[in-house]
Every structure is written in structure tokens, then in C-alpha cells.
């Protein structure tokens, strides 16, 4: 296949419809940035929940050696843990539960405060200093008194943390921001789809003579549609690149430089979450332009 024609058509097409392409790119840029923010916020909520428990979770600290609670006589024993597990399992308010080991607790603390403090000859804490814990997920956030009173007096239990009231506004605002971003993105996505559709209609109209002759002399459908698909792909890639840049700037200047240092009681999204968000928009962007292009080229360029 001669690609020279395809690429010269691609260049011509991009230039001919420049204003439309700019409109598509800008709409994609803003909508993909918002989608990316939604993805980041979603991950932020998960991250906070992994440390503080979700809106349905309460944490039962188990006794460790040298526990602050005088009721503890030493590290919780396996027999005590089994007794606690049995009470938890039989309680009707409990949907699910799992134990967390000292090592898991240590990993979380390291992630929150940074690993530097825990290295070298004089670490701030070691895994041995961490308590074991039991994470209980409730069926109903309002039904928790039965299980807390049942567990609190058991041997081997040091205390119960129910941070849900404190965390409620935090989760609430993360949630609101997430859905606000995704909802606004949804409108812009519709605008982007319509813009792409219009761009293709204009391009197909501008090239109707060429397309008519190509069909007549037996050019394959793929060959006819290829300049359109490449145009769609190019605009999508520019939109994705801009959105990834925007999200990167938000991560660096917003999260890393402003929030992270001041609000360090929860772990914040970082590089790996940014990568997830960029992958999400890198998949979504081309779909948003290629899908209407495929549908409409079938309609306008039918052999």
C-alpha cells in the first residue's frame, strides 16, 4: 500500500480543518484532565481508607508487649486471637473482617511517614513495636455498638479505633470532588464526540470527489478511511499529552508541593497513581475520537 498518499492527505486534512481540530484537542484536553483527576481522587480515597479504614471499618488494636493499656499482660496469644475472631465472626453486625500483622502495620507507617526515619542504626520504630490489629467491616455504618462492646472487654484487646466520624468530611469531599470531576467530564466527553463527528462530516464533504473516485476505482475501505482514522488518532494523542501534562503539573505543584507536607496524617497519591490515571486517559482519549470516526466513516464512505 502506498502510504505517501495517506500521509499527504493526513497533513492536508489537519491543515484544512485546523479550527475544528483545535476545538477537538482543547475539549479532549479539559475532559481528559477531569477524568484523570477523577481517577486520582478515587485512588486517593482508597489510599486513605487503607490507612484509616473505610467508612464502614473500625479497627481493633490487639495487645503488644509493653502495651500502654494496663489490661494487656503481654503480646496477644493465638488462643486470645481465636476467641476474638469467634466473637467477631458470630456477631450479626459484622460483614467482614481480617487480621493485620505487625509487618503490614509497619509497612503502612513507613509509607505514610517516609522510609528514611526507619533506616539506619537508630530507627524510630521497628515492626516489633507495631501492634497486631483486627479490621472489621460493618454491614451498616450505624450499627456498631454491639460489636464494639462485645470485643472491647476481651482478653488481648488493647483498644478500638472508630475514626469514622472524623474521616466523614474528608471522604465526603473526596467523593464530591471525584463525582464533580467525572460528571463535568461526561458533558465535555459528549461535546468532544459531537465535535469529532462534525469534523469528519466536514472532511468527508471537502473530499467527496476524491472519495467518490477512490470508491469507483476500487480503493479498499481501509485505505479510504485511513486518513480520517489517523487524523482522529493525532488529535487524540495531542489531547492526551496535554492532559497528562496538566495532571502532572497538578500532582507536582498541587499535591507534592502544597498538600503533602501540611496534611501528613493520610498517605497521598504519588507517581504510581499518576501513571494509572495517565494510562486511563491514554486509553480513553483515542477511543473518544476513533469510535465516532469508525462509525461515521462507515456511514459516509460506504463502498
Amino acid at each position: 500500500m502506498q502510504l505517501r498518499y495517506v500521509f499527504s492527505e493526513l497533513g492536508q486534512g489537519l491543515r484544512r480543518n485546523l479550527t475544528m481540530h483545535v476545538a477537538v484537542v482543547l475539549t479532549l484536553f479539559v475532559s481528559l484532565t477531569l477524568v484523570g483527576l477523577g481517577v486520582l481522587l478515587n485512588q486517593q480515597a482508597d489510599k486513605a481508607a487503607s490507612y484509616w479504614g473505610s467508612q464502614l471499618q473500625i479497627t481493633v488494636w490487639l495487645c503488644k508487649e509493653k502495651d500502654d493499656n494496663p489490661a494487656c499482660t503481654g503480646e496477644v496469644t493465638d488462643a486470645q486471637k481465636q476467641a476474638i475472631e469467634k466473637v467477631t465472626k458470630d456477631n450479626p453486625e459484622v460483614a467482614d473482617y481480617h487480621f493485620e500483622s505487625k509487618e503490614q502495620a509497619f509497612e503502612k507507617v513507613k509509607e505514610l511517614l517516609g522510609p528514611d526515619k526507619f533506616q539506619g542504626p537508630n530507627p524510630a520504630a521497628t515492626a516489633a513495636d507495631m501492634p497486631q490489629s483486627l479490621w472489621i467491616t460493618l454491614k451498616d455504618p450505624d450499627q456498631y455498638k454491639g460489636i464494639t462492646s462485645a470485643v472491647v472487654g476481651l482478653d488481648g484487646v488493647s483498644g478500638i479505633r472508630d475514626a469514622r466520624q472524623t474521616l466523614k468530611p474528608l471522604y465526603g469531599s473526596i467523593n464530591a470532588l471525584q463525582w464533580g470531576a467525572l460528571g463535568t467530564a461526561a458533558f465535555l466527553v459528549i461535546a468532544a464526540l459531537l465535535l469529532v463527528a462534525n469534523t469528519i462530516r466536514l472532511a468527508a464533504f471537502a473530499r467527496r470527489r476524491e472519495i467518490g473516485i477512490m470508491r469507483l476505482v476500487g480503493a479498499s475501505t481501509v485505505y479510504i478511511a485511513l486518513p480520517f482514522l489517523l487524523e482522529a488518532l493525532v488529535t487524540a494523542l495531542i489531547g492526551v499529552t496535554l492532559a497528562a501534562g496538566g495532571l502532572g503539573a497538578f500532582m507536582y505543584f498541587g499535591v507534592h508541593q502544597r498538600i503533602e507536607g501540611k496534611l501528613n496524617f493520610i498517605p497521598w497519591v504519588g507517581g504510581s497513581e499518576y501513571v494509572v490515571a495517565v494510562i486511563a486517559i491514554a486509553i480513553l482519549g483515542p477511543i473518544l475520537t476513533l469510535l465516532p470516526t469508525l462509525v461515521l466513516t462507515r456511514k459516509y464512505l460506504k463502498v
Partner: protein
Amino acid sequence: MIRFEKVTKTYAGMGHPALDQVSVDVDKGEFVFLVGASGSGKSTFLRLILREYRASSGRIYVAGKEINRLAGWKVPRLRRSIGTVFQDFRLLPNKTVSENVAFALQVIGRSRSEIATLVPETLELVGLEGKGDRMPDELSGGEQQRVAIARAFVNRPMILIADEPTGNLDPTTSVGIMKLLDRINRTGTTVLMATHDAGIVDQMRKRVIELDDGRVIRDQAQGVYGFQH
């Protein structure tokens, strides 16, 4: 080469069929005129050969293949074996004569070296040697139609379809175009031409198929345009 077996074509929303039980057999290398009033079904007949539409019923064979059953992605291959010329030339105004002819080869993926030989060769055949660098609007109507014929023939199709190719041309120029189509026919290409031009049909004395209201009312070897003339 082309075979219609009881072909009926009814367009959506039209009660009356555009073609009604048409059976026609055209051999390889024949020259056939398709005549009849406007709306008699000539264009539908030609478009069915190109598989621009599917027949509502009946079978159409082109080069041995039943094209009604052809999968959509095989249609381009069918069209590569058919050249088409129209009354309004349909040249690309922003390309030179050579580029217009070369376009037909480029878009079906022929190599540059093939294009470099075939295009001048074909322009010479249609009598346009030396005019490859002109733009279409610098040419006369007859010359433009020669470019269109060159474009239709450059891929050496087995069949050439011409839908009123002389409809926009004066009689003298038309004779030149007919001579050219006759020359192409002599290379073994089957030529199928729809026309209203009685003079040409009477002069050429080729096979004539007359359509009226979607039916074949006459199929005559070495025929004339019509008895009313």
C-alpha cells in the same frame, strides 16, 4: 463477461421496480449500447454491475462471479476490474492530468514504477501525449473526457462502463471519443455504454439493448438507436 438472470431492482420506498426481470448476457470483448428514455433503468443497470446496489432478486455475474453474494470487503477488487466514465468527467480540479490518471493507481496500491510507465502510456493511447502537466480546466471538454477515459482504463480493466460519455460534448468531439472507445474495445475490453445519442448508435452499428420502464424491450446485434429515428 456480464450476465443478468431475471434481475429485479426495487429501490426502498418505491413501489415500482427500476429494473424488472432483466436477463442479459454480454460476452467478453463485446461493445454494447444501452439505450432508453430517462428513468428507463440504464443507470440502475450500470450501477448494479459496479455493486453500488444489490439486486432485489435475480443473479448478476461479472467475470464469472455472482456479485450479489460478494462480501462487502471484496467489492473494491470487483471494481478494479471495471473502468467507469461519466457524462460530467469527474476529474480532480487541483491535480494535473497525469496526477488525475495516476490517482486511480495510487489508491489501489500500485507501485511508483508501474505508475511511471502506465500513466504516459495510457495518455498516449487516448491522444493526450504532452498534456500530462496541464490542469483539467485548461482542457476542452473532449480532452477532459479523454483524461477520464485514461483514468478508467489505466488499470487495464476487463470491462469499461460509460454512462453517457458524450452527453456534454458536441457531435464532432463525440465522434473522437467514440473512436477512442472503439479502440479500447479492440484491445479486448468489454465496453458497455449508456447513451441518448442516436447519431452515434446508428453510426457504430453495435449491439443495442433498449430498456423501457425497467424491461428489456429490444436486444439487437448491429442495431440502431430506435425505430422512431
